[in-house]
């Protein structure tokens, strides 16, 4: 995967040169951080390439998301005012369904031939594997969300009042959804009931993201008079917590599950 052998995380790192000031990070530590980021980018690139070649996001997940948005329309009797009011919630519920599908696919690709174990044996830091996989899932969800925004504009007749708020909400919420989805999909990988248990685990964990993102969209689409930027702050906190949990917990999970 990369030309240089990775440093053993269990091995003590050599002490920094005595001449430099104590507060300055050692070159070894800085290069390790850089290497972790590079590994994460490689894993994300690999996952996105697999996804692009299979065309699953384009051919299956986007039509699935469109179908869910249309079915919501049928369920609410195609009543435009109701759809306009409910659009933020319906959008993010659809995004949650998309996350379940995308996260499940991302882990299923690793399950064949013990790929995940081999990635770890290759010396890639588990946190980097998690970050790479979550980033790839986030890119896929963002791509689907782009189509979904067009969908709610056309089918539900909503008007966008703040494009920056829409963009910032999509970025923050997607980071949280992708992180939670990737962690929980890795958690159930290899278990006999993974298809059924992933939604059971992911939906409550993603509920705060769903609530905050829907309220922020309320403001961005003018469905309700709320302070969208305040909800965005809450969303950012949830997303950061989910990413940190994932980076910390992926290692023990990957070693054992």
């Amino acid at each position, binding site marked *: 995967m990369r030309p240089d052998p990775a440093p053993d995380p269990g091995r003590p790192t050599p002490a920094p040169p005595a001449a430099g000031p104590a507060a300055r990070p050692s070159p070894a530590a800085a290069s390790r951080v850089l290497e972790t980021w590079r590994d994460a980018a490689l894993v994300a690139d690999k996952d996105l390439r697999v996804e692009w070649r299979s065309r699953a996001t384009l051919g299956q997940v986007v039509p699935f998301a469109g179908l869910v948005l249309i079915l919501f329309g049928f369920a609410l009797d195609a009543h435009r005012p109701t759809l306009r009011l409910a659009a933020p919630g319906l959008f993010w519920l659809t995004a949650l369904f998309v996350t379940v599908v995308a996260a499940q696919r991302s882990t299923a690709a690793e399950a064949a031939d013990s790929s995940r174990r081999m990635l770890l044996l290759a010396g890639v830091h588990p946190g980097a594997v998690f970050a790479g996989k979550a980033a790839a899932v986030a890119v896929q969800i963002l791509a689907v969300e782009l189509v979904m925004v067009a969908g709610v504009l056309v089918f539900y007749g909503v008007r966008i009042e703040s494009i920056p708020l829409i963009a910032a909400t999509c970025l923050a919420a997607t980071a949280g959804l992708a992180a939670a989805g990737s*962690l929980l999909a890795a*958690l*159930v990988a*290899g*278990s*006999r*009931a993974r298809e059924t*248990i992933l939604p*059971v*685990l992911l*939906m*409550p*964990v993603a*509920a*705060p993201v769903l*609530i905050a993102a829907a309220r922020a969209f309320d403001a961005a689409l003018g469905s309700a008079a709320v302070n969208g930027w305040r909800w965005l702050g809450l969303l950012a906190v949830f997303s950061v*917590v989910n990413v940190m*949990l994932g980076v910390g*917990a992926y290692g*023990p*999970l990957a070693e*054992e*599950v």
Partner: protein
Amino acid sequence: MSDPEAKKPTTGSLTTRWLGLAVLAGTAAVALLGLLAAPADDVQLDAVRIIFVHVPVAIGAYVAFGLTAVGSLMWLWRRSAWWDVTAHAAAEIGVLLCGLTLATGMLWGRPTWGTYWEWGDVRLVTTLILFLIMVGYLSVRSLGGDEAASTRAAVVGLVGAVNLPIVNQSVNWWSDRTLHQQSSLTDGKLENLTLFTVFLAIVVTVLAGLWMMIHRFRIGWLERELRAADLDAAIEARRSEAAAAADLDADPEIAAPEAARNRP
């Protein structure tokens, strides 16, 4: 005929029996004080008496889920089987108490708020989310696979722990989005006898949870030992088979033709 001297297997001990008796006596005292001695509220009338169940089970659920989080962390950090079994036992008791918190909260909400469920109330919603995450924890536990199941469940336990402070502080953070009152125990709004009864009920509920947890822990520990014994027996059986096969190879009557065949 069964041996009259043989002891029935039990998870009870002298400590749990005394603890159980103390819980029974405490429950009777709380019932007497809460239903007869404590005064009714000026506004809520007798409906306020549900505070003697609702607040203690909610605090008991927090304690249990906190213990699950500590146990999960200790499993991931130290691979401590003791903490792993403790986390599982605490999660089961926590889910029971959290379910009771939601049920009693709904029963209290009907006469005071006019509705069983209020979506706009952040504490109700966040408690429900916490309950569902911990139900997920128990689902993951049921997947089996010993150490892998423990690791999976420990991660879910930590995810639930992230929600714990949010639930606890939600009425303070989002005071404009809740029907819940601010903490009743610390703001001095309760009568002395009511306050005393609430604190007694909290102690009794935590002790009842502890009593259930000790029994559940012992069952979990025995299950773990049984699995380990089954594994040891299986390994021993395979070793015996291997030894028997080696004996056959060493037998000259069987080994000689084999050796002749292998000779160049």
